């Protein structure tokens, strides 16, 4: 009997207490819970920033070694003036992103470039290979039919040539006969800036019909094919390295901003907490004093 009555009493008491305390913006308990959780978030974002800073230094060092690699890989296509053939409408876009988020606008930048292109007319012949789950997530809703391949487990470890080789295998075995294409990636400019850039992909036919190919001696189809496979791999490797560096620097900046915002929230919440605490004390004093004054 007492058990059944007690809850009723309790809820009535709690309702009265809540009604009293809800006259403030929020209860002291609610503010202190919020304060504790924001402090934890600040600790987490600060440690993520430290981790990203360490990964960024390593990624930048690797990128310095990989830059001549990427420049050398496209040199041939520039010198031989390989152009996109007019009669091959099929194109292949490769979106270089990664699996992990909380890194600013790196993934959305690359996906936006591809999304804009797919939104323009003449996009039926464009297929997309998503390197990294993030681009797949962004493009899947509207352009799911254009995606022919996804690579994941990107972003956890620094990219190696073997990863690029696996992606190359996936592109060449996808069965999609493309005439030309682009690798869309984030080119690293500095710690605080990166921009979307692209590397050209050509098909074997495009290379064979290049105007200046005749100047190159002793070439047969085999050599051209092996050369193109290797240079595709090199370009993907270079794009992976650039993307990794941009991502780490962007994550560092994003986590730094998050820590600063969390710090501001903590300051504001602490002030609110102190004000509320003083208001509660003042109210209790008023009640006591007015109660004592009423007895007189």
């Amino acid at each position: 009997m007492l058990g059944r009555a007690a809850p009723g009493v309790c809820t009535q008491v709690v309702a009265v207490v809540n009604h009293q305390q809800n006259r403030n913006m929020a209860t002291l308990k609610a503010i202190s819970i919020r304060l504790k959780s924001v402090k934890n978030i600040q600790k987490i974002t600060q440690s993520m920033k430290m981790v990203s800073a360490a990964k960024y230094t390593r990624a930048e060092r690797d990128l310095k070694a990989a830059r001549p690699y990427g420049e050398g890989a496209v040199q041939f296509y520039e010198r031989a003036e390989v152009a996109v053939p007019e009669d091959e409408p099929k194109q292949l876009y490769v979106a270089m992103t990664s699996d992990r988020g909380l890194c600013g606008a790196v993934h959305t930048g690359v996906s936006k470039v591809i999304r804009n292109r797919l939104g323009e007319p003449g996009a039926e012949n464009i297929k997309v290979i998503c390197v990294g789950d993030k681009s797949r997530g962004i493009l899947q809703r509207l352009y799911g039919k254009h995606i022919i391949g996804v690579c994941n487990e990107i972003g956890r470890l620094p990219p190696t040539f073997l990863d690029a080789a696996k992606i190359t295998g996936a592109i060449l075995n996808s069965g999609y006969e493309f005439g030309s294409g682009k690798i869309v990636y984030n080119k690293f400019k500095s710690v605080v800036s990166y921009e979307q850039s692209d590397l050209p992909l050509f098909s074997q036919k495009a290379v064979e019909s290049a105007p200046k190919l005749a100047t190159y001696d002793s070439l047969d189809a085999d050599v051209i094919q092996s050369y193109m496979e290797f240079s595709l791999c090199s370009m993907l490797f270079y794009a992976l390295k650039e993307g990794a560096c941009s991502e780490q620097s962007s994550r560092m900046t994003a986590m730094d901003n998050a820590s600063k915002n969390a710090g501001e929230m903590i300051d504001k919440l602490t002030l609110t907490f102190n004000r509320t605490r003083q208001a509660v004390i003042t109210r209790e004093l008023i009640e006591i004093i007015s109660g004592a004054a009423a007895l007189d």
Partner: protein
Amino acid sequence: MALAFRGALRSVARRLQARSYADAPKGDEMALTFAAGNKVFYNKQVVKQIDVPSFSGAFGILPKHVPTLAVLRPGVVTVTENDGKTTKIFVSSGTVTVNDDSSVQVLAEEAHPLENIDRGAAQETLSKAQSELNSAANDKAKAEAAIAVEVAEEIVKAASA
């Protein structure tokens, strides 16, 4: 005064000209970019001669070589610099491009200077690769093991040369 100024200007211009002449590689100088996935050995540096092992045969590249493309096979690339110094670097695979402006790009998958290669370890890798080739199950594994054997043989040959 104007005469002296003009003389000074001409000497400055000549000095500027001299500086730019040294910077840009002319048609008879060969700018080599030799990069591997892990390291850059030469970045647009002018060298005298490069010997590369390729699937169409080993050949040496001098300035004004005819433009060509080739696929590297496992072997040693020898670079002879302008002061006569030779550097031997082992490459696992890759491509070499000679462009019409006499610039050469050697892009290797993995490359290591010959001094860093240990003969004993190379021998071990060779025997392991050969045993894998014998025990390979399907065609794909056989092909991969054959590649490993070829590279290991070349490493041993390079290390003992």
